[in-house]
């Protein structure tokens, strides 16, 4: 017979966490190597192997450990390695190759470990040091990305050592499902996938529908916006946070099973998620009677296959069912009739990653970040013509200026900022004169854009806004599923008009026609894709109409 005490101890999360903490504390030196898609493609795999080899050759494997982490944020400067020795302030190295990594080990890590004295960065290494005092790092507020970049995402024990699954334990053992829903409602968390619907409200609606035989919680990881990779980085850097969030959601709404829907274009994210799920199963965090309670839950992964429209919840549900990803009219909402006609609740990756933090630290703590109506922090993928392109997390309400000029380091090559685009193909532009606008759901909507999932694309003054609008429309026309006429035909007609204007063959009346079709598409399309597809055109027309008229046969603006 197996000793029950022994078994309980083996699967006790506190026990696992303490053992891991004790193990980590034994090391004097921690070498964190970014092992996310960005840095991996810049060659971080080889560097990790090299560092391990050097440590072994010097018999220092007992004193220093190498941690392959998730995204550290500054992808453009990768591969990145952060070294922490004797508890002193860590040093971040950028743009490394095998030679510089060797020098770092020989001139910095090894001497420091042997002498235990002061650590000096040799002159030859200085060009590779990325100051952690840069506004890029200091101005950020990491809640969702706290673990990414500092833990090994493939080690469940390390996640537990950083407080992982404590929130789940708290929910299962000390709270009723209603209390969990109330806490999330009180926090003011809103869906991070773009819509911005209150997460607590959604859960409340889903919880109210009785569970007859099955009820599902679905994680939307179909991050299709070009120029956005927040969800990829969260799944790659801290997959357990998303799983834990989903389990708490399942407990709150009474779901019987969970589904992750992830883009097939993100193989590393899928692999890490799979490993994390397996680790949960091994540690009895998934399955029957989780943590000795009555709560039983299991999850599975389904892959997308390159259809942008599948980010829309009803299309996503069709895709999980194994069918074409076409949306259907709502109501009935998925909370009533979703996957296989069963009540289902669809939440975005970043939304779920917030849940455990809210439960552990409290709704009031979470609500202390952000503005009146937009609470918490938001992860953005800051890309385009900006000095520090990468993944950032800031409190809601941070201004565009702070994000682009302070955190992002401004526009490079002496060019000027023209605008920032948010919300991808469903969003619009924020012109440079509105740089002091705080980023939150309402303000972005007012200016004709949307929060979207979090892509922020910086555009400099050399960019042609008509071409940009055409780029986005090209995308949505191509990705339209073709089910409803306003989107299928309207999008195509708008694209033809834009092309005509771009070729210098357009007339004034074409602009009027563009606006008319856009209006019809917004009002009559079946799903969010068609309803928002005209936004990039309308938004650029609103702020940069002279760029359009300058291209018209009969409309050149006077110089």
């Amino acid at each position, binding site marked *: 017979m197996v000793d029950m005490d022994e078994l309980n101890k083996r699967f006790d999360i506190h026990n696992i966490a303490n053992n891991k903490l004790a193990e980590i504390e034994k090391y004097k030196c921690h070498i964190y190597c970014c092992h996310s898609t*960005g840095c991996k*493609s*810049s060659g971080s795999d080889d560097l990790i192997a090299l560092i391990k080899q050097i440590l072994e050759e010097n018999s220092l494997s007992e004193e220093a450990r190498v941690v392959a982490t998730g995204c550290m944020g500054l992808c453009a400067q990768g591969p990145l390695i952060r070294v922490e020795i004797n508890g002193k302030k860590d040093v971040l190295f950028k743009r490394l190759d095998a030679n510089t990594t060797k020098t770092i080990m020989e001139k910095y890590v090894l001497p420091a470990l042997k002498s235990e004295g002061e650590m000096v960065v040799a002159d030859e290494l200085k060009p590779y040091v990325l100051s952690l005092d840069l506004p890029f790092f200091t101005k950020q507020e990491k809640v969702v990305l706290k673990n990414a970049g500092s833990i090994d995402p493939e080690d469940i024990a390390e996640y537990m050592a950083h407080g992982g699954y404590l929130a789940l334990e708290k929910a299962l053992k000390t709270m009723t499902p209603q209390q969990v829903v109330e806490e999330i409602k009180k926090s003011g968390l809103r869906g991070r996938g773009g819509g911005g619907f209150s997460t607590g409200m959604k859960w409340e609606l889903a919880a109210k529908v009785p569970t007859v035989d099955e009820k599902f919680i679905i994680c939307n990881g179909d991050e299709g916006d070009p120029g*956005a*990779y927040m969800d990829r980085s969260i799944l790659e850097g801290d997959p357990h946070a998303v799983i834990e969030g989903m389990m708490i959601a399942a407990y709150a709404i009474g779901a019987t099973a969970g589904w992750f829907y992830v883009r097939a274009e993100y193989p590393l994210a899928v692999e890490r998620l799979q490993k994390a799920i397996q680790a949960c199963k091994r540690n009895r965090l998934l399955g029957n009677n989780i943590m000795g309670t009555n709560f039983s839950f299991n999850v599975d992964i389904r892959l997308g296959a390159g259809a942008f429209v599948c980010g829309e919840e009803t299309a996503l549900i069709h895709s999980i069912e194994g069918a074409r990803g076409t949306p259907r009219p709502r109501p009935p909402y998925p909370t009533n009739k979703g996957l296989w006609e069963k009540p289902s609740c669809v939440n975005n990756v970043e939304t779920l990653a917030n849940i455990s933090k809210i439960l552990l630290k409290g709704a009031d703590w979470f609500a202390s970040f952000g503005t009146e109506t937009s609470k918490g922090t938001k992860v953005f993928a800051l*890309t385009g013509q900006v000095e520090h392109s990468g993944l950032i997390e800031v409190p809601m309400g941070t201004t565009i200026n702070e994000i682009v000029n302070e955190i992002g380091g401004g526009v490079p090559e002496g060019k000027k900022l023209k605008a920032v685009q948010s919300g991808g193909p469903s969003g619009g532009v924020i012109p440079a004169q509105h740089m002091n606008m705080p980023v939150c759901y309402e303000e972005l909507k007012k200016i004709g854009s949307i929060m979207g999932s979090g892509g922020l694309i910086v555009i400099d003054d050399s960019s042609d806004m008509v071409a940009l609008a055409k780029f986005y429309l090209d995308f949505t026309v191509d990705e339209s599923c073709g089910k409803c006429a306003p989107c299928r035909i309207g999008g195509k007609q708008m694209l033809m008009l834009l092309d005509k204007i771009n070729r210098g063959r357009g007339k004034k009346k074409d602009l009027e026609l563009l606006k008319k079709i856009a209006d019809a598409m917004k009002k009559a399309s079946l799903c969010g894709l068609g309803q928002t597809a005209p936004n990039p055109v309308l938004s650029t027309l609103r702020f940069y109409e002279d760029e359009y008229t300058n291209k018209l046969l009969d409309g050149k603006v006077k110089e």
Partner: protein
Amino acid sequence: MDNDACLGCQTGDKWRRKRGSLIMALHEIQGVKGYVGWQDAMDLAKTMNIPLARVYEVLTFYNFFKLVAPGKAVISVCTGTACFLKGNDKVLERFKSELGIKEGESTPDGLFHLQVVRCVGCCGLAPVCVVNGRTYGRMTPEQVPVILNEWREAFKEEA
């Protein structure tokens, strides 16, 4: 047909008892062969007891799936926003002129397949292209022939 050699049957067998598994089964076939051929689709439909029309309905809807064998090296040029702003169109043009094919086509020698993809999520490294899973960041048109030669050499060594 011998079940051991039939990819469609094996995959179908593995997935048919699971719900919502058609797309997963198709992914698995493409993962092995690089595309989903007519015979695979037929075998899969039969084993999973799904009408062939349903299989093709799904296959043709999602642009991730390929219906014919691509070249040995699949070149994916990212056309996401960050890559667009940083001039990936010039990189794409260079690939087209160097290979003499358009996007979505393979070279006659069967070595290269050129395709454009929506954001690969490496916007920090823009402009980006991916060849058989290997990502090349900060691309310039000048790098195109270098990369192509790298792969040609690799294939020569293999042969």
